[in-house]
């Protein structure tokens, strides 16, 4: 770590003081209309404003669910830049590009600023009183089972409050939806290790074999894994960790691999079994299972050369411990669960469980633990909606109209609910279909607590606190809205809490002892909590309980080529865009995709061999047709993809949301077939088959790389050498 002690102390000095100020003023939660504020000269402004001097507050990044802690730089009451909070064991002071861009979410000109009530095609701005009244009115007489809630990952006290509200309504229909979540891997892990997400120790592994787990870009907790990766590459005593990535479409992690294997789509499990076979150290059931997976067959099925299988087996045998990861490339098939199980089996065979796969810690407050999202829930919700089961639908900041496969006809299903309330930041595709839109505070204006899904060294509760005053007078925090709603139902129980801040503070103080503040008085505890931004806890760690269970593990033979739709569509998740909720942040749009360097648009990745076969060159607009529909987009000829697959990133192709998102690119969900993973019911994202037809149009691809692409043309610019020519132990 570069951060010296000096730096840290400096930080804390400011933070301790800043946190106190926040506590006193309740920044962001008193409004001028309340009459609680006094007019003062700017030179004697609020405690947290010193003209010309930056102050720093700690909070939590909400751009994804990894739960990185952030430190916001605030000048003159405006948040300017976010850095990672060095105290957090998750991101240790680092922050990814997506996190950096969240200030653009906060300052976004396209945010919803008033509660909007649908009047025909228009939204009419109404007051919050009216909005709450309307909700109360619409809920009257509606039975609990006729009310549904859809949210993304939710944790902490917002989750508690949401649960309380649902209880008060008598609704049990909480659908937690995440378009790109490792739900199949969670299920396979549960089966194999007894926990959904063990603690992966990439930093302890000498070899990492990843089946499409993009842990550097998009998978679970990328900033944390990237730091582990850095340690893994440095290695111990100069022995550098080796990364092998097997997937059909190169991810950011694949691009950093020592050996990248282009696997025929869907055969990841076969490769895993083939490697077990080649290792030759398995016994019993496992040996029985893999005995048919000899090199020749595996090589034929997966397209991986036999010599590579040998080399991988050799290095896995030689260097222990290793770590094998199953990622989205493995799980996105009908037999995704089988793939993931076969891959997890490798960890058992190699003896990694307990060494690089450790038992995870969990937060000692189960009510705060995250509800983990998946796509099966959306399928269920959609079926229910289509069946007309719900009269009222609360959508809390998700955008299923954009991310549901077109075949769901989610918009139509949703229309069957009588009253749809959307808690929204933007008027995105889903919010546009709502009857009532409630504008949310940005994460830099809101209070909250978050428990990350993936915990690292310690259990922790992340604090989210406002970094500045509300930008728009009429937005509200999610907690505030839920509190107001729950008060409608149970006014007596919640009357002690003026606002969500009060609720949150009260809830935290109540558990002061358990949160490590037993000897502090309330104010000190609260101020310390805010200034730290994190509450570290010693949570129970759930022991790994699974075993190498091969019962029912049966992998299908590789799919025969479909004559009409010969190519696999891989709807890829990229590190910039994720599921498209950040597309309206211009830094994200202009940040080149790491692998293709394309900006502001969608593209279709196609292997050069395939492109040559079809007579396609870069920039050709092609029509991609699946059984569900078709879209047209530009081709990017990309060597890092299996020739039988094409790939379109998700996240672009918005038809609403804002000026930076709308009209840029295409949305692969609109042609995705409704095929599901057989065990978990998750949407199988890689099971759509497509064909490609040239349209005859050609465009210049808007990208950062030059006309020679990634070639150096003899210049000595990016230099590479192999491990036998280097002595890392001499390095600093």
């Amino acid at each position, binding site marked *: 770590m570069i951060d010296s002690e*000096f730096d840290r102390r400096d930080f804390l000095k400011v933070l301790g003081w800043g946190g106190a100020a926040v506590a006193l003023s309740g920044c962001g939660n008193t409004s001028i209309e309340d009459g609680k504020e006094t007019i003062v000269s700017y030179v004697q402004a609020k405690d947290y404003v010193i003209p010309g001097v930056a102050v720093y507050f700690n909070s939590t990044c909400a751009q994804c669910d990894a739960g990185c802690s952030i430190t916001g730089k605030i000048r003159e009451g405006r948040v300017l*830049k976010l850095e990672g909070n060095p105290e957090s064991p998750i991101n240790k002071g680092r922050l990814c590009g997506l996190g950096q861009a969240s200030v653009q979410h906060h300052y976004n000109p396209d945010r919803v600023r008033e509660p909007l009530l649908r009047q025909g095609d228009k939204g009419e701005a109404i007051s919050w009183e009216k909005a709450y009244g309307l909700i109360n009115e619409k809920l009257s007489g509606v039975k609990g089972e006729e009310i549904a809630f859809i949210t993304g990952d939710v944790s902490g006290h917002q989750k508690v409050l949401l649960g309380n509200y649902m209880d008060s309504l008598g609704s049990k229909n909480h659908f937690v939806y995440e378009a790109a979540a490792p739900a199949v891997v969670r299920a396979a892990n549960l089966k194999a290790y007894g926990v959904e997400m063990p603690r992966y120790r990439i930093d302890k592994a000498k070899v990492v074999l990843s089946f499409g787990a993009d842990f550097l870009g998009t998978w679970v907790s990328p900033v944390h894994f990237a730091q582990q990766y850095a340690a893994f590459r440095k290695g111990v005593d100069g022995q550098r960790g080796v990364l092998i990535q097997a997937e059909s479409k190169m991810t950011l992690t694949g*691009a950093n691999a020592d050996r990248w*294997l282009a696997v025929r789509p869907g055969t990841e499990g076969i490769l895993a079994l083939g490697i077990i076979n080649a290792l030759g150290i398995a016994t019993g059931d496992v040996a029985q299972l893999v005995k048919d997976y000899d090199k020749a067959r595996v090589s034929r099925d997966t397209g991986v050369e036999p010599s*590579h299988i040998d080399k991988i087996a050799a290095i896995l045998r030689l260097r222990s411990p290793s770590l094998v990861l199953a990622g989205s490339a493995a799980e996105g098939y009908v037999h995704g669960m089988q793939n993931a199980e076969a891959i997890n089996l490798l960890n058992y065979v190699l003896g990694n469980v307990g060494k690089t796969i450790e038992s995870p810690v969990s937060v000692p407050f189960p009510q705060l633990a995250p509800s983990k999202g998946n796509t099966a829930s959306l399928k269920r919700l959609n079926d229910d909606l289509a069946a007309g089961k719900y009269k009222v639908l609360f959508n809390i900041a998700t955008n299923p109209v954009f991310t549901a496969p077109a075949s769901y006809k989610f918009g139509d299903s949703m229309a069957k609910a009588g009253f749809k309330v959307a808690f929204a930041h933007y008027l995105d595709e889903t919010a546009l279909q709502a009857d009532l839109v409630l504008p949310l505070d940005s994460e830099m204006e809101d209070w909250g607590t978050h428990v990350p899904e993936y915990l690292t060294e310690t259990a922790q509760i992340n604090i989210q606190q406002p970094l500045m005053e509300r930008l728009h007078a009429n937005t509200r925090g999610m907690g505030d809205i839920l509190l107001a709603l729950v008060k409608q139902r149970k006014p007596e129980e919640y009357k002690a809490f003026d606002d969500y801040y009060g609720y949150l503070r009260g809830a935290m103080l109540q558990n002061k002892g358990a949160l490590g503040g037993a000897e502090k008085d309330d104010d000190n505890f609260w101020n310390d909590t805010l200034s730290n931004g994190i509450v570290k806890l010693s949570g129970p760690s759930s022991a790994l309980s699974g075993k190498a269970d091969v019962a029912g593990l049966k992998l299908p033979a590789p799919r025969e080529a479909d004559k009409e739709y010969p190519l696999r569509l891989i709807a890829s998740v990229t590190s910039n865009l994720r599921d498209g909720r950040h597309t309206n942040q211009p830094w994200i749009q202009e940040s080149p995709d790491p692998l293709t360097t394309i900006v502001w648009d969608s593209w279709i990745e196609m292997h050069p061999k395939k492109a040559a076969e079809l007579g396609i060159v870069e920039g050709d607009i092609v029509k991609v047709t699946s059984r569900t529909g078709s879209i047209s987009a530009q081709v990017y000829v990309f060597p890092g993809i299996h020739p039988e697959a094409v790939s379109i990133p998700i996240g672009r192709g918005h038809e609403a949301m804002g000026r930076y998102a709308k009209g840029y690119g295409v949305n692969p969900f609109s042609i995705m077939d409704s095929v599901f993973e057989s065990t978990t019911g998750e949407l199988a994202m890689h099971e759509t088959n497509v064909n490609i037809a040239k349209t005859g149009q050609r465009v210049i691809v808007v990208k950062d790389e030059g006309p020679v692409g*990634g070639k150096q043309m003899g210049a000595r610019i*990016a*230099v*590479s050498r192999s491990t036998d*020519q280097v002595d890392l132990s001499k390095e600093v």
Partner: protein
Amino acid sequence: MSVTNLLDNWAEVRHFHPIDDKPHDPYKWAMSIDLDACIGCNACAVACYAENNLPVVGREKFQHGQVMHWMRIERYWNEDDREFPDQGAEFLPMMCQQCEAAPCETVCPVGATNHTQDGLNSQIYNRCIGSRYCSANCPYKVRYFNWYDYPTTDNVWPAEMNYQLNPDVTVRGKGVMEKCTFCVQRLRAAEVTAKGEGRIVREGEVQTACQQSCPTNAISFGNLVDPESRVYKQWKAQQVDLAKDEQEKDKQEGGSDLRGYRILEDLRTYPSVMYLERVRESAV
């Protein structure tokens, strides 16, 4: 102005190379970037946008090559004709190399780009008249010209988005050249604080925005004349000498097992950024 002044200065500053005498006292800011650690995630580039008020030019202007990313991540493939890039890609963050003998400095007609005593290549925006000669002469092409007046261009900083602008950094209008500054606003603040306390800036006291965000710690930045600094140690360990256009270790028979190098070093630009070669496992 006086003749004595003239003669004094003439005698004193007639050095041919800034590192031949002692202008780098007490600071010489330098960087080293480990390409083996760099994963190409773009966090540094976005952090640079946030810190340095870089405009988002939009799709059309990006297509016209008018993008303003001071830091760009380049993605290279191995150049042999294998079917797949089966050793992955190589990512390279490229920004102003703060050359010691910068080709851009000498050609500026108005002296808007100069060398500083602490070894930076500084751009004076309000002196710049936009001849663009500096960019023409930059081998790395890391200088970016304001082709339009971005502050007044639609949707670059629309209302509220402009609140994010960093008041420590100038917002550049049309017609001036700009480039990576090594976050000079942070350096100055640290230097001034340290001066007030009668010491020099300590290692780790100041970070550039890109370095601070980097998840893999691939970027180190610091004072190259401070033996305590990580950058100094890295340069030393890699036997890369700032003042040489060809390193001793590279002249050895059979090369060395050190991986420090500077890009286009043979052009005698004496860059202040050392890269460490990417490594790939030979056993797989």
